[in-house]
């Protein structure tokens, strides 16, 4: 049975990294706080943390190999409807699987060998349109201050939820718009005030340099398409971030959607969802999201084992994406009327209680 918690007062959230909510979070000790962890013996944690190149090499060969095959078949059937399913598959591998590769390689945990992580990271960043410098630092902040309003730059669904924005992002529309604006701004040598709050000054020139390379690549792609009189080059480079985005949005919204904010217990603000093997390949096991946030040093291929080890201390994983959406969408709808509303899942009897001390102060829950 799930317990739904409500706040009996509404507090306006300021998601700007330069705003009031961020300052309040720092004052209250929510920023860079000590988060809850399930106890795992050191020997077992070491075994889980062990790095290996083999799984990621295998998966990368499959990923890129499949992209080449689907692209080849799409090109072969270009001009015919027969090409559409191949481009749809290619699009998901380009515009969605790149999200999980960006994530895991950004952590440095996909491969044991550093240059392999870096190479796949750079490629995935280009595909998902996330500057590798900017987003490494924003993701670092996301792990430090997960769903802390005014501190976390990666809160996917703000409150009250903008449902139109959500729907548009299934086709990558707003993300691509912002990515292009950011790329152009950075390429012209400008780091925004918000970016400066989490990108160290010494790293900013690299962000600018990479933006300029990307701009050149897109200019070449557009020029090629123009010269050919065909949109095909853009269907292969750039546009898949739009038509292939749906899978990473579908899975990504479940990470934190409808759950608590301004807490320091990932069991309250993150969700683990069991998924089919194809989705887990595309998503690289990020469906084990509570586990990942609690122990980000555990590589993707060990997350199922970590889940088995600590599930006694976590709310039950959703058995499917459908289950996750069945609880998340109603939560979003309720947040339209009351932005303090969140879904609070029951813990099993074997679990230690939630850490709720800060959240209890910021958004009292009515029982």
């Amino acid at each position, binding site marked *: 049975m799930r317990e739904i918690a409500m706040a009996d007062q509404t507090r306006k959230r300021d998601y700007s990294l330069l705003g009031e909510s961020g300052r309040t979070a720092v004052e209250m000790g929510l920023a*860079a706080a000590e988060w809850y962890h399930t106890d795992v013996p050191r020997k077992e*944690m*070491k075994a889980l*943390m*062990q*790095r290996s190149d083999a799984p990621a090499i295998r998966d990368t060969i499959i990923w890129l190999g499949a992209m080449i095959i689907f692209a080849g078949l799409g090109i072969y059937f270009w001009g015919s409807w027969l090409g559409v399913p191949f481009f749809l598959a290619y699009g998901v591998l380009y515009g969605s699987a790149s999200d999980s590769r960006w994530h895991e390689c950004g*952590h*440095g*945990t996909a491969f*044991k060998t550093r240059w392999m992580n870096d190479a796949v990271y750079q490629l995935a960043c280009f595909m998902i349109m996330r500057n590798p*410098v900017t987003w*490494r*630092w924003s993701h*670092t902040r996301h*792990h*430090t201050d997960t769903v802390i309003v005014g501190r976390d730059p990666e809160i996917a669904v703000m409150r009250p939820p903008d449902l139109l924005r959500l729907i548009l992002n299934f086709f990558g529309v707003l993300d691509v718009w912002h990515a292009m604006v950011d790329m152009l701004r950075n390429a012209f040598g400008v780091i925004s005030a918000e970016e400066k709050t989490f990108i*160290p000054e*010494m*790293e900013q020139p690299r962000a600018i340099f990479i933006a300029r390379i990307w701009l050149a690549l897109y200019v070449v792609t557009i020029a090629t398409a123009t010269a050919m009189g065909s949109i095909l080059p853009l269907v292969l480079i750039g546009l898949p971030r739009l038509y292939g985005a749906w899978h990473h949005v579908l899975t990504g919204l479940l990470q934190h959607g409808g759950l608590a904010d301004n807490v320091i217990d990932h069991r309250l603000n993150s969700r683990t969802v069991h998924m089919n093997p194809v989705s887990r390949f595309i998503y690289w096991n990020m469906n084990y999201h509570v586990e990942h946030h609690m*122990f*980000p*040093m555990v590589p993707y291929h060990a997350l199922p084992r970590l889940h088995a080890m600590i599930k006694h201390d976590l709310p039950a994983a959703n058995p499917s994406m459908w289950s996750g959406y069945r609880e998340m969408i109603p939560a979003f709808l309720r947040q339209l009327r009351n932005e303090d509303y969140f879904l609070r899942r029951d813990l099993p009897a074997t679990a230690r209680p939630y850490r709720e001390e800060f959240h209890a102060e910021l958004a009292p829950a009515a029982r």
Partner: protein
Amino acid sequence: MSGNWIEVCAVEDIDEEDVMRFDHQGRTFAVYRSPDDEFFATDGLCTHEHVHLADGLVMDEIIECPKHNGRFNYKTGQAKGAPVCVNLSTYPVKVEDGAVFISI
């Protein structure tokens, strides 16, 4: 060698290619045992966001912070890339009569 030698632990208390936390007089350190059975010591907190490195992963000569996967060479203290930018301080270590000592 000058310095204050403080006993940390028995040699067998730290596994090979592993790290242990050591606290002394309000300071915290990380003591490492390399795959080559040598011992090293650094400050115990990551220079990025002050997370205990002893909860992290030792790989060859690298210690990886458990919070953001920042990496240091624990033998030299050198920060090996973002998000860690500031090196760790290192401390001399010796082994005598089966015990590990750190000079601080």
